[in-house]
């Protein structure tokens, strides 16, 4: 990974990352993982345009600026919540102290709080760094288990440079008493943050977890290279929100993976609103009979934003259900690519899988690509997908305007209505309200 155009060198970075990991007493296996990952990153290089998942998004501007990035930027000293950026505090609202909370600022975690109720239940909420020292046994078989170490050059680089991330563990049979929120914040430009988080729900455990990504606004490039691995034990249930709202300078690439056990249920809400160029791969594996996954997501791009969302619904066991709905709205010169795939493995009979992608294009300079796919290797299944791309229905506009609403208000109402079914599924009212405001602001 040393393109001639940049002075960046993977080996220097990897060596520094290894030294720092050793200083923090990371277990030997985790250090070995970093070492192997840097080998993979070197061998794989930046993904080429010939790769199907990289044909429709172009990270070259970022790649050329790589030498200006700093993967080791320290977080500012943080004694308590008051030292956090105001925008983050505002989002947190009055909930601080009553929820489980992990805040990552730049490359490291600065706040870790477990609510007393959670502590009594044996729920662990902490930084991944701390967990690697204190709960290594719970991470050993999980960290890196779902994101393949050689998935692509970026994933490998992220594993080599891993900086920060959170660890959440809910023991068997426990229903986490309060929600858990994980924040990622980036200050200014020139950063490269590579957090890796692990979320584990034991058998019959329950939890609500919301992960939020925010930053201030800046001119130059910053890069978030994240990864999250979620494990649901048999009959567990997780409501999981991942809300991305970077400033317009942030390049974002993340790999999200979930493994869903027998009879377990994942409700996953994703929003993609911020960032300059955004690429997210959200995969889940249904590995035990009767597992269920419901994914609801939306993206809203304006300006020159580019979003690429790839989802993979992998049915590896029988009698599982998955239902995925991704809505996209685009204005100005924004561009979105949705690339989805349902895979049904041999023997995964009685699968019921659904995948829908609906796109609303508000300007003639915006562009939406939709590529839903099915690969089915079992016969006793019901697999359906649908995709639509269109503009605001003129009849709906006419209806509203005939009732005296100005064009802009009418359009805003229609777009809000388009997103409402997804927003309604977000578990915390404060966040729902915030998202409505973001949408209003974007419609302008």
């Amino acid at each position: 990974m040393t393109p001639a155009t940049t002075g960046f060198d993977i080996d220097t970075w990897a060596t520094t990352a290894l030294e720092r990991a050793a200083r923090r007493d990371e277990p030997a296996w985790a250090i070995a993982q970093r070492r192997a990952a840097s080998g993979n990153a070197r061998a794989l290089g930046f993904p080429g345009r010939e790769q199907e998942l990289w044909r429709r998004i172009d990270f070259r501007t970022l790649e050329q600026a790589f030498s200006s990035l700093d993967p080791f930027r320290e977080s500012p000293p943080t004694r308590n919540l008051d030292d956090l950026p105001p925008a983050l505090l505002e989002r947190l609202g009055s909930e601080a102290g009553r929820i489980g909370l992990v805040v990552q600022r730049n490359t490291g975690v600065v706040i870790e709080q477990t609510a007393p109720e959670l502590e009594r239940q044996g729920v662990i909420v902490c930084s991944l760094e701390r967990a690697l020292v204190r709960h290594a046994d719970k991470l050993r078989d999980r960290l890196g288990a779902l994101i393949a170490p050689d998935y692509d050059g970026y994933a490998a680089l992220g594993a080599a440079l891993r900086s920060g991330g959170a660890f959440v563990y809910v023991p068997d049979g426990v229903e986490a008493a309060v929600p858990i929120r994980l924040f990622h914040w980036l200050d200014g430009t020139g950063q490269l943050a590579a957090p890796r988080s692990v979320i584990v729900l034991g058998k019959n455990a329950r939890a609500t977890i919301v992960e939020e990504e925010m930053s201030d606004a800046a001119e130059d490039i910053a890069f978030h290279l994240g990864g999250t691995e979620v494990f649901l034990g048999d009959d567990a249930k997780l409501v999981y929100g991942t809300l991305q709202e970077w400033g317009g300078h942030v390049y974002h690439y993340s790999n999200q993976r979930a493994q869903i056990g027998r009879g377990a249920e994942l409700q996953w809400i994703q929003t993609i609103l911020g960032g300059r160029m955004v690429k997210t791969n959200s995969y889940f594996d249904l590995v035990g009979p009767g597992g269920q996954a419901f994914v609801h997501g939306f993206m809203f791009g304006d300006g020159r934003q580019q979003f690429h969302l790839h989802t993979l619904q992998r049915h590896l066991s029988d009698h599982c259900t998955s239902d995925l709905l991704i809505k996209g709205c685009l204005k100005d010169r924004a561009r979105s690519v949705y690339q989805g795939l349902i895979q049904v493995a041999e023997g995964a009979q009685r699968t019921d899988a659904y995948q829908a992608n609906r796109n609303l294009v508000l300007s003639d300079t915006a562009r939406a690509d939709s590529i839903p796919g099915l690969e089915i290797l079992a016969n006793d299944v019901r697999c359906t997908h649908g995709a639509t791309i269109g503009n605001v229905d003129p009849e709906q506009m006419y209806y509203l305007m005939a009732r005296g609403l100005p064009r802009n208000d009418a359009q805003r109402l229609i777009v809000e209505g388009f997103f409402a079914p997804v927003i309604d599924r977000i578990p915390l009212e404060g966040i729902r309200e915030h998202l409505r405001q973001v949408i209003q602001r974007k419609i302008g």
Partner: protein
Amino acid sequence: MSTETPNLDLRDSYTEKYGFHDAEQSVFKSRRGLDREIVAQISDMKGEPAWMRDYRLKALEIFEKKPMPTWGPDLSTIDFQNIYYYVKPTSEESKSWDDVPADMKRTFDKLGIPEAEQKFLSGVGAQYDSEVVYHKIQEKLEKLGVLFLSCDHGLKEHEALFKQYFGTIIPSTDNKFAALNSAVWSGGSFIYIPKGVHVDVPLQAYFRINTKDMGQFERTLIIVDEGAFVHYVEGCTAPTYSSDSLHSAVVEIIVKPGARCRYTTIQNWSNNVYNLVTKRAVAYRDATMEWVDGNLGSKITQKYPSVYMMEPGAHGEILSIAFAGKGQHQDAGGKVIHCAPNTSSKIISKSISKDGGRAGYRGLVKVQKGAVDSRSTVNCDALILDERSRSDTYPYMEIEEDRVTIGHEATVSKIGDEQLFYLQSRGIDKEEAAAMIVSGFIEPIVKELPMEYAVEMNRLIQLQMEGSVG
């Protein structure tokens, strides 16, 4: 559905019905393999003008430079140097069946071509290996100025018209196999329908591979002038050999303002044929292009007929059936490209996989900048008949305009137990019930076929359903 092995299928009866072969008795056969010499030899044998010879040689260079596609079915087993690129069966093209050599005539008799010509068709072309051996069109159409010739004769007899359009829709740089075809093309049809002429009864071409390790590279060019209409039907079969044959055609169609063209394919190659075909049409103002594409045979098929809608009011339609049995991979589909405002398109795809076969839809809906008020709907349904088979759907939608209506829907399922139960409770046995359900599944496309093909298609489906339930 039963978990027992359904062993009777369409392909079993293939050997008996289509899988026979004649003794090889070509008048000329190029040596195996492909190089400049072979390409020049083909051109010399045909006595072509220099521009075509140069075109072929240039295309060969492009073919050699282009990498094999990295997506789709595995084509790595094709050995380009083991193939005979040109096998000339007779010295002359005949206008009467009586003049066709006895062996070949027997073959086409067995396939029912002369009979069909009398009953259903306006004109027939029959290609045997590399060359068209028989060509005939009704006199009254000839008088109206309709041209229906082999592509080679088209070049010879109407060079100006031929040159104006040849390679303009699918340039040799389009893809590796289009380049290959451009280098070694032989046979195929050249059709011109003059302004306002409606050819009410279909024109048909029949393609037969006889020689082992043979590559067939027919080239078809159809020009439908303003307000005219034609329905062109092609069928293809080959003997069942243990080694693989290659069929790589290029079909270019120009549908002028207000005209309509329908192109129907019943592809029933034997299971040892790689069928890698590039088909593309351009439709101008208020013109309609329809592809009806039935893929039953071959080992691997990669074929995505496309319609470029160039001017307002153009309409494109693709109806595709893919059936994949044992050892078959049908990677079928279609592409519609909206290049002008107020254009519309529709794709319906039905695929069936059985006995470990893999059938799929791969398609593209593209709306270019400025193509406002375009409408497109895509419907893909797949039926998987047993647990060893596979179905894939890969639709691509690339939309660069906001005032458009684009929809895509796909479902994959098995034969419903409830449907079976319903029919069985009315006294229909299970096997017949399953066949009825499959017939119903493909009915929206079969009903678009000419009568005799619809009957044939239903018969084929019934045949292959035998023994599959129980």
